[in-house]
C-alpha cells in the first residue's frame, strides 16, 4: 500500500553518509537501499515521515519534515493554530487516538 506520490519530504546528503545501515534497520517501510556502501532513497513514496531514520543516523545525513499522517490531528492543529497533535481524547491530553 502506498500513499500519495512525491509528497514525502525525506532527503539524504550522500556526502555525509557513513554507510552504517542504521536507516535501513529502523525504517518500517524499506525505503532505503545501499549502493556502493552508501544509503540511497529507493522507495520515497513508501516513506511515512516517521523520523526513525533521521533520529538514528549518527552522521546527520538525513532530514525529513516529520509529523503525524493523521487528518484529525492536522485539522486540530489548523483549528488551534498549533502543531498537528493526536491528543484528541476528552481528558485533555492524557490519551491519544492513534
Amino acid at each position, binding site marked *: 500500500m502506498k500513499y500519495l506520490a512525491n509528497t514525502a519530504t525525506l532527503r539524504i546528503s550522500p556526502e555525509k553518509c557513513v554507510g552504517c545501515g542504521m536507516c535501513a534497520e529502523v525504517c518500517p517501510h524499506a525505503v532505503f537501499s545501499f549502493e556502493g556502501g552508501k544509503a540511497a532513497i529507493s522507495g520515497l513514496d513508501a516513506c511515512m515521515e516517521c523520523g526513525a531514520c533521521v533520529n538514528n543516523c549518527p552522521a546527520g545525513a538525513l532530514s525529513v519534515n516529520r509529523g503525524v*499522517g493523521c487528518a484529525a490531528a492536522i485539522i486540530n492543529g489548523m483549528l488551534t493554530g498549533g502543531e498537528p497533535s493526536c491528543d484528541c481524547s476528552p481528558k485533555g491530553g492524557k490519551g491519544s487516538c492513534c
Partner: protein
Amino acid sequence: MPEIKLVLKKDENAASGRTCCAPAALPAGPWVAGSVNTPCGQAPGISTELTRRDRWDNFKCRVSSFRNDYAVPPGLYAVGAPDRESEVFVSANYKFSFDTLRRQLKGLNAWVLVLDTKGINVWCAAGKGTFGTNELIRRISSVNLAAVAGHGKIVLPQLGAPGVSAHEVSKATGFRVIYGPVRAKDIPEFIKAGYKATREMRTVKFTFWDRLVLSPMEIIPAMKKYYPLYALFALAVFGLQPSGILFRSAFTGALPFLLLGLASVFSGAFLTPVLLPYVPFRSFAVKGWIMGAAALLFSMESSTWFKLVRTNVELLALCLLFFPMASSYIALQFTGSTTFTGMSGVKKELKTAIPIYMASAVISLLLLAAYKLTEWRLI
C-alpha cells in the same frame, strides 16, 4: 513480608534522595508473578500467559475509550529468574503493548524495562517522543540497569525508533541499543537468529485483519460525535411545517436521510478502511467518496422508502452531493490509523478537500432550503 521490605526500601530511597527502580508498590493483577531481587530493590515478576481478564481488557481497548486509562507502572520487571547475563527488553507502559511483549517471552529469563509513555503504545509514543531518548536514559539510570544487566545491551521494539536515537543512548549510558522486530510475535525467531531481524520482520504491514480490528474505533466515534447531531437536525428540518413541528412528517421525511447517513458512516468508517487496497486511487478522500457514492446508489435502489428522494430534484441533488462527501470526510479520518500515511501527504489532501467539503455543505443547505420552500409552496 515482602511488602514490608518494599516499604523500607522506599523509605531508604526517599531518605537518600534516590529514585527507586521498581514500581512504587508491587502492582496488583493476575499478570504479576512474585518478585525478584535486584541491586535496586525488588522487581515484580510477570507472567507470560494472558488471562481471560487480560484478553477482555485488550478487547475493550479496540472498541472504547477504555484504552485511554490502561497503563502499568513504569519500571523494571522480571520474566522467569533473570540474572546479570539476561536480555533486557524495553516496552511502553500501555498495558496492551506490555501484554503483547510478555506473552512472547515464554520460557525465557529476561528483564523487561517499561518506560513511562503515559499509557500510550510504542509507535505513537515514539512519534510524540515519550518513548524517547530522554526517558530511556533516565529509566536506565533510575533502575541502575548497569548493575542489573552486565552485558551492556538493550533490545528495543523497532517501532520505538522514531523517538529514540540509538547512538545518543549509547553515548549517555553505555548501553548498546539493538532494534528488535516490528511485531512482538517475531521475537522468538529474532532471538533464535542471534538477535538479527530479517527484512520481513523489519517491515510494517497493514493486513485485512489489522484494518478490521481498527474499524470499530472509526465507526463508534463517528456514531457518537456526528450522527446524533445530524439526526436531530434532519428531524427538525423535516418536522418543521408552517403549522408548527409535526412529529409525523419529521419521521417520515427524515427517515431516508437517517438511513443514508448510516450508509455514509458505514462506507466511510468501515468499507473504505477494510477494502482500502482494493478501492481505486491513493487519496483517502477519493476512496471514501467512491465508496460513499456506491453505498448511496445501492441504498437508494434497495427500497421504496427512498422514492421521494429519488424523484424530487432538490432532494436527489442534495443526496448525490452530500452523502458521498460525508463518507469521504469520514474515510479521511482513517489516515490516523494507518501504518503508511505521512503528514505531507495528508496536508496535501486536506488542502484540496476542505474547501470542497465546505462548498458542498453550503450548497447542500441551499438545496435543502429550496426543497422546504417548495414544500411550503412559497416558491
